[in-house]
């Protein structure tokens, strides 16, 4: 069985020192080892942005796609080979701005993949513009007078889109994040984890200290029931989305692959491409 070190490669990340994404990378590597994966059984698909580089920093099959499209690529990979563990990842701009259409539809479609968003409330790679997660009033290069748009709530959106696994974590809390990624990988369906991953270069408001002061850990509520969708929505609203932990999980709904009529358990990619003469003749019959 592979150790977390086997999920490391020798590529040096181009992230700024102190970037929250380093911990997300480490958590994915640990979680992959902890749930017993081998590098060749893992495909990491990422979008564009600082965080999108993550697929190149994990020793696995990595696909670095185009901006906002990590999820459709990841879903294509999973449909083609359901024996692979597929993790899609990217930033808040990737998943909640340009790729939001894909995010909600991937959630409601419920393929058995894990989606990790590294949420830093800013566009880092383009050097500091507002993101859909920036708070109203937030000053950036593109909003010099402060953002006049409201920040969107990915957790509420995920729940209302029919998510079967919703979690949130903070990159400083490597232990919680690793555990949540393990649970997400094990979950049979679409797992969504939003991770507060501070940008130390361009976001001087939502800093490590700011998050530490403002987030509440669901562990503080021993009675919290993550199978109760209404309670989950209430808790998100009560905390203004500043909560971490497993927020909601529905283990009863079947994943998309299990609902496709006639879809084989074995990877489609391993099946023969040929058809028989009899099958072909049957196909022709309706055109005669």
């Amino acid at each position: 069985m592979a150790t977390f070190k086997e999920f490391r490669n020798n590529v040096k990340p181009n992230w700024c020192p102190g970037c929250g994404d380093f911990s997300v990378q480490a958590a994915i590597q640990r979680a992959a080892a902890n749930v017993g994966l081998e590098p060749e059984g893992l495909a990491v698909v990422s979008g564009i942005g600082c965080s999108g580089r993550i697929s190149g920093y994990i020793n696995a099959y990595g696909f670095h796609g185009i901006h906002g499209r990590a999820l459709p690529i990841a879903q294509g990979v999973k449909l083609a080979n359901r024996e692979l563990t597929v993790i899609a990842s990217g930033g808040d701009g990737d998943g909640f701005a340009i790729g939001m259409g894909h995010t909600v539809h991937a959630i409601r479609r419920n393929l058995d993949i894990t989606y990790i968003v590294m949420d830093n409330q800013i566009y880092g790679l383009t050097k500091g513009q507002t993101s859909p997660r920036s708070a109203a009033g937030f000053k950036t290069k593109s909003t010099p007078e402060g953002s006049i748009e409201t920040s969107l709530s990915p957790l509420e959106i995920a729940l209302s889109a029919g998510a079967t696994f919703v979690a949130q974590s903070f990159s400083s809390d490597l232990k919680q994040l690793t555990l949540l990624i393990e649970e997400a990988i094990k979950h049979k369906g679409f797992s969504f984890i939003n991770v507060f991953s501070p940008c130390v270069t361009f976001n001087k408001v939502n800093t490590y200290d700011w998050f530490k002061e403002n987030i509440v850990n669901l562990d503080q509520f021993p009675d919290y029931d993550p199978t109760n969708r209404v309670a989950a929505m209430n808790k998100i609203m009560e905390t203004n989305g500043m909560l971490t932990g497993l927020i909601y999980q529905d283990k009863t709904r079947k994943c998309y692959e299990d609902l496709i009529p006639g879809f084989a358990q074995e990877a489609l990619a391993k099946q023969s491409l040929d058809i028989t003469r009899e099958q072909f003749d049957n196909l022709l019959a309706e055109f005669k």
Partner: protein
Amino acid sequence: MEDRGSARGGRRKYGPHFSTALNRLGYYLYGYRHFSSRIKGGHTNNKIRISTKPIRAISDDLDILVAFDQESIDLNSHELRPGGVVVADAKFNPTLPDGVDARLFAVPITAIAEELGTSLMKNMVASGASWALLGLPLEVFNKAVEEEFGRKGPAIVEKNVEAVKRGAEYVLELAGGPLEEFRLEPADGRQKLFMIGNEAIGLGAIVAGCRIMSAYPITPASEIMEYLIKKLPKFGGTVIQTEDEIAAATMAIGAGYAGVRAMTASAGPGLSLMMESIGLSGMTETPLVIVDTQRGGPSTGLPTKQEQSDLNAMVYGTHGEIPKLVIAPASIEDCFYDTIEAFNMAEKYQVPVIVMTDLQLSLGKQSCEMLDYEKIPIERGKLVKDAPPLEPNELFKRYEFTEDGVSPRVLPGEKYGLHHVTGVEHDEAGRPSENAQNRQKMMDKRLKKLKGVYIREAIRVDAPHEAPDLLMIGMGSTGGTIDEARQRLAADGVTSNHVTVRQIHPFPADLLLPYLKSAKRIVVLENNATAQLAAQIKLHCGFADNIRSILKYDGTPFLPSEVYKACKELN
């Protein structure tokens, strides 16, 4: 002949059993559907041309017009040839417009149908009447009816057969027997298929081993998706309807990367949305097959009308420079075989392949020679299985520099195949790299993959003359019309050769050159306003002074008479 009315319940049902029966008798058929981008209402018609010889064009005029309302007669009777026939429902007291030289047979179509139980059988009454006028045996027709309605029980079959019979009897009495001038010679009786291009593409995809289609509904591509939705589950595969065309294309790329032959299909607006994905496929060298069923553009344009105006978008679309193959089937048979070849090319050269059709080829139902599923064997190119172990920290060289530019490819899951794939410029293992030397080598590697690569019959040639008066060049669905125009020109003593361009990009210039050189005048025929195919020829082959364009972009296919006339008027 033509069946016309407004798009109300069941009208589109007129075609199937009538045409199926003719197909079984061995006639060659060519259909054309006029319809609007709306669900109900609006004038619609369905033309079907019947011949004992192969035909691949709509005709200039009509022999028989079957009308279910007066509007259909008013709108279309001018298309009738002198002495043509109108079969109309007596219910609306049909009349012929002034000056129309035709015979009108008013058959109580609705009344007969209602008498038999339901007005839904109007189509059967009308079909029976037209069938009888052609002097064809009712038994063959009845068999097609029986097959269509068999699962609904013998009572329904019997009623429909009766409707056909009553329609036939009524019209024969009016006409005094079958119309001698329309009597069809017996057909060759050879088994043929009768299908639309989109079905042939779907069938080709299955034979090619395509098992995933991700697509977003759009006219006139949706039939490909609908066909595969019915068939792919039988082969372990699936169709996924995505949230948009960007998801459709990128999902197909994901599936292709993971080793399944995958495709998407769309029309102009969807193709525009897929441009960035096409670039991703080219840059990451991931196989991708896209079908573009062209319709009237730009923007939403004419969604249900004929056009060939996406050529430039297919050839030049997507930023940067990638290798890409654009192939243009020109018949139903091509739709089948070219789709299989598209999947082979996509994997062999690890490139995006666009299969370009047009609305008339995609939706016009027509006769097709029997198809051979073994004619084009599946080829997957440099797909590596059981790769040898790698050194520690060594990645599989997915983008290895090779003589032909094509690198070995492994699929995720392979033990010793770990590598990275990215749309960022990268090194041989797929790691991002901005190194100038590497960049140039990688660009050259990718772009040389398709140098000199041609599909089977990259151009299709009919060149009986060494130095013809005209070289006629077309693509897609226009070939049959060109050939009919050529026959008329030949009768006037004008000699012509005909080349169908089937590989649009990379342009097969060297194959085309000898034919361009030998012709006194070159005519390029296309359904667009800016002569996009002619521009490719001029760019790659020259001959700008000698090329004339015949263009049509009113939403309807060329008629043989229009092409003939345009050729006669050439300067």
